[in-house]
């Protein structure tokens, strides 16, 4: 418990960034039906289950053209 309090100023922003990434990516996956490859279900799993890296992979490689 002592450790958690010591690292709290670090853990909070990390958690917030992670949540922001997850939510923006998830909204984008749900709103845009076109992907460069894969389908919606795959991308939802990638974005939700792989922390931090999943949403980045989606935006860099998976996001389809408008």
């Amino acid at each position, binding site marked *: 418990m002592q450790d958690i309090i010591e*690292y709290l*100023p*670090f853990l909070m*922003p*990390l958690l917030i*960034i992670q949540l*922001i*990434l997850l939510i*923006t990516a998830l909204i*984008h996956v749900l709103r845009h039906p076109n992907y460069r490859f894969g389908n919606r279900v795959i991308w939802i799993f990638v974005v939700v289950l792989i922390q*931090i890296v999943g949403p*980045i992979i989606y*935006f*860099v490689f998976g*996001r389809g053209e408008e």
Partner: protein
Amino acid sequence: MRSYIAFTKKEFHEIWSTYKFFILITVFLLLGMMNPITAKITPQLLDSFMPEGMVIAIAEPTALDSWMQFFSNVPQIGLIVLVIVFSGVMTSEFSRGTLINLLTKGLSRSTVILSKFTMSSAVWTLCYILCFAVTYFYTAYFWSSESINNIGFSVFCLWLFGILLLAIIMLGGVLFKNSYGGLLLTSGLVVVLMLVNIVPNLQNYNPISLASNNMALLTGDVPISDFTGAIVICGVGIIAFITSAIILFKKKQM
């Protein structure tokens, strides 16, 4: 000048709407947080993985360890992400054919290159400052009393190397049809620079020392004057790559 400002604005708008800006900012923010925390918890991690009864002496982490993480994580992860994100900055325009209209309407070709270079440099600078600020803040939080030599200069060196990479990407984007060409050219040149670094006489003039030799600067093993050659070469390289990109782009068939 007006077309330059307008085109640069369009570039900023594009990087925002393609989520690339968002990705870069988050990656560099996370990197900035990772550096001090990795330095802080490494001894504890090693401790918990050790089998019962085995003891190894690990020095208490210092602010220097945190900056060591900074100067290994930013070149290794940060610069790679930067290059990947910007590798398509020229080629996506060619493949979609969006430039043809603008160029026939009288937009000068050098403006295109300079605008893209300005935009990517500005984004890199912003992300880098952010990453530095976060690392600085947490390092000061964990190890408040310690001061570090030459930190500003060392950070500037790495920034300049990032700009050099962006200039190479611009040239790669003009030379090749798809974005992998630019990626290949950039990584190829970095590998060449690393090989050149084996020759001891050339090390002081090699731009890669700006990204790899920062720790020696912080510990005071190497004086600032040793970096002058590398900085001059790096600056000349940036100008040379951008000029050749402009010249080649003017000759290129759309």
